[in-house]
């Protein structure tokens, strides 16, 4: 699964630490999500979409291997 958290974070001019505080998670979690090492829960995905004022579908995209 791909995500555009890093891009959206840059648009909002937020550091990983600031986004972590807003999303109520640790900085490690933000970093792991940006690197594609961690797929967040629905709750966290919705929280991020609210922070970035974008839909979850725009923030996260399925890749071909996710449909196998």
């Amino acid at each position, binding site marked *: 699964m791909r995500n555009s958290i890093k891009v959206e974070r840059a648009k909002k001019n937020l550091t990983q630490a600031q986004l972590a505080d807003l999303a109520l998670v640790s900085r*490690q*979690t933000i970093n792991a999500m940006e690197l594609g090492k961690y797929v967040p829960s629905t709750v966290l995905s919705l929280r991020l979409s609210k922070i970035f004022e974008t839909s979850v579908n725009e923030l996260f995209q399925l890749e071909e291997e996710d449909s196998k």
Partner: protein
Amino acid sequence: MQENYLLPASFKKWGWSIFVSSAILGIFPLFYNWEPAFLELDVPAIFIDDLIENKAIIGMTNNNILNEICAVLVIIGGLMVAFSKEKYEDEFIASIRLKSLVWSTYLNYGILLLALILVYDFSFMWVLIFNMFTILLFFIILFHWNLVKLKKSVDYAE
């Protein structure tokens, strides 16, 4: 999300001091055969069988309770270290917790399986004694090792 099966974060430092001190106090007598006389007591017991003559379902038995005290404290301290919340206990940490728990269970039973087919007689009793604590120990090591690895990867990202 609230993880209500974990202990408060403040339990962790107490857990470490109980775990380490009772482990040292418990391992030391194994090598030096040291048993303080004042801990030699008649204690209530169930399923008594001293292999000589005393057999009972329930009753009193004489025992040096140093190793029992240490084992209880090692387990309580170990549980406190293993299952206290991290400073930022979020869903990602929970996933690392789960991964570490699964691998420590594999490791623990992998070693036990090897010991089952390679270690016999009295030596196997030592395997069983240490096996009481190894799953907790492996989990504590793996979980904290994963946390350190994670912290390093974030420091790199900065």
